[in-house]
């Protein structure tokens, strides 16, 4: 079932990137705005899916590392005037460092206990962000994170004069595409293969000679680092870092995006991010009861399409192919 050859040979990351590049030129200001948000969310959910779909770990506190990335990048850029080229990777490293510390304790427990422990640590991060006024701005957050210097994008041949939002969009999709390429490779690497064995059967994985906890911790750190990158981009995009980024409902939201798209496919979660952001902006024009709609979507998903959108599409495609193909084949 999961061995569908469909599009295996197509470099999807490159294809999607090449399409996305045209958004500022062809779409409205609002399309670029949504595009930036979708791209960042896509990176966030793919980082989560390294745990969920690849390693089989349910993290209910992934927003912690997103938030840490946002604050780290924001504090470095705003308070200390560090340029983006340094602050951005630093945000990933700091998020990964926290993932290492928290993960060390979390991987000692399994299944639901693991999920609850990740949630508990995320809430501790939230409390720090919410209360440490001097550094994080507390309840008001850390507004006014400066945009990175991006004039060079406009000076590239053929791009013409772009607004800062367009430039940041292009930077974002470039960073997200690079991150996708790296994560895709990690999943296909022997390391990624080891993670899938842990997902399928941690007991057996230990008995082919894997230190399961160490591998889980490594996956946790990598996922945390990339969540940190997503957070760093989001802090700049949303013009500030706020304690809400770390709250448990944010962690739930990414989980919803991830399974909405389908955790068994690399491109499932980004599709989920796209669907949810799009749905949100459609729905909020009609009603203020967006949480209600989201809840109903979630119920339909849980009871009707546990494989998510991409899972459902692939299953449909498979059925169609079987119907169209002569029996004997």
């Amino acid at each position, binding site marked *: 079932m999961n061995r569908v050859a469909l599009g295996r040979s197509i470099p999807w990351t490159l294809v999607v990137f090449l399409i996305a590049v045209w958004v500022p030129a062809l779409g409205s200001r609002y399309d670029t705005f949504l595009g930036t948000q979708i791209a960042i969310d896509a990176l966030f959910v793919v980082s989560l899916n390294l745990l969920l779909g690849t390693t089989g770990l349910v993290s209910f506190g992934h927003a912690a590392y997103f938030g840490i990335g946002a604050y780290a990048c924001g504090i470095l850029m705003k308070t200390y005037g560090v340029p983006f080229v340094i602050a951005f990777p630093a945000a990933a490293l700091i998020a990964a460092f926290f993932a290492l510390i928290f993960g060390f304790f979390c991987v*000692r427990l399994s299944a*639901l206990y693991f*999920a609850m422990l990740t949630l*508990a*640590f995320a809430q*501790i991060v939230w409390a720090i962000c919410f209360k440490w006024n001097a550094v994080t701005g507390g309840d008001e957050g850390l507004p006014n994170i400066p945009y990175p210097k991006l004039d060079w994008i406009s000076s590239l041949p053929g791009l013409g004069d772009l607004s800062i939002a367009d430039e940041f969009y292009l930077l974002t999709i470039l960073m997200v595409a690079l991150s996708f390429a790296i994560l895709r490779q990690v999943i296909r690497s022997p390391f990624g293969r080891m993670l899938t064995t842990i997902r399928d059967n941690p007991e057996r994985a230990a008995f082919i000679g894997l230190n399961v906890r160490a591998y889980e911790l490594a996956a946790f750190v990598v996922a945390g680092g990339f969540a940190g990158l997503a957070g760093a981009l989001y802090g700049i995009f949303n013009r500030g870092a706020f304690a809400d980024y770390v709250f448990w409902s944010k962690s739930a939201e990414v989980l919803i995006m991830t399974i909405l798209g389908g955790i068994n496919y690399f491109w499932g979660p980004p599709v989920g991010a796209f669907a949810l952001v799009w749905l949100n902006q459609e729905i909020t024009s009609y009603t203020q009861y967006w*949480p209600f709609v989201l*809840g109903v979507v979630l119920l339909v998903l849980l009871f009707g399409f546990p494989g998510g959108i991409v899972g459902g599409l692939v299953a449909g495609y498979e059925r169609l192919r079987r119907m169209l193909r002569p029996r004997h084949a």
Partner: protein
Amino acid sequence: MAASFLFSQFVGGLTTAMFLFLIASGLSLVFGVMRVVNFAHGTFYMLGAYLAWQAVQWLSPTGENFWPAALLAALGIAVLGAVVERLLLRHLYGREELYQLLFTYALVLILGDAAKFIWGTGQLSVTRPPVLAASLHLFGAEVPLYNLFIMILGPLIALGGWLVLNRSGAGRLVRAASYDREMLDALGANVGTIYTGMFVVSAFLAGLSGALVTPIESVVPGMDVEIIVQAFIVVVIGGLGSFWGTFWGSVIYGQVLSFGILIFPGFSLFSVFALMAVILIIRPWGLFGRPIR
């Protein structure tokens, strides 16, 4: 500092603790028996508060009929719990934990918005029941009678819960269900009924605590998310799935919060998170929990 002030700080902490225990006990029971983390537990609590307010409006806005209103609210939430478990949650038992987690989160979203739709977004308020409106002068501190009532109710519920779990036939089945569902099935016990019963009891407790909080706190949207975080901390500190752990977790939470505010006023709520961090680092499975891996 005079002892009377320490006493009143202690009493304040204990009131908070017993309220939290009323709420967290239901969360802990459902987790202990069914291995479901019910995020909607806080929402049941909030709906209990709204229902209590509504019932007070119907019965008597001046507050004499607070008690029947509170009971009515708790029963209403119990019924809601039964409906949710029978119609929806039970179809997810065989599935991965993630789906159950997200299911209860879907309830948070849907029921939270339903409450906004019905009762609006403003702040609602219920007056103290006249019987308990006064305060008692105790060791030089003013102790509101209503808080005293909560401080007595909490341990009573704890004791009652413990007796039912450990001294009754139904309790034995419930505990057995928490160890091995298949074995219980084989013994011919009806696990489905036990689960429904457990969920209903837990919803009742949530509804009751929501109703009982209305005379001291305001009823507002978002109080569900606020309380579930606190209940969650209590359960994690005490140890997931441990009933007494939840009780002592609440007591510790209340006192750390109360004295944290007295001693380090700048940090206020951070003290309990720091407590949680310390406990998780030493015992990730909580004070009374068992290490599982």
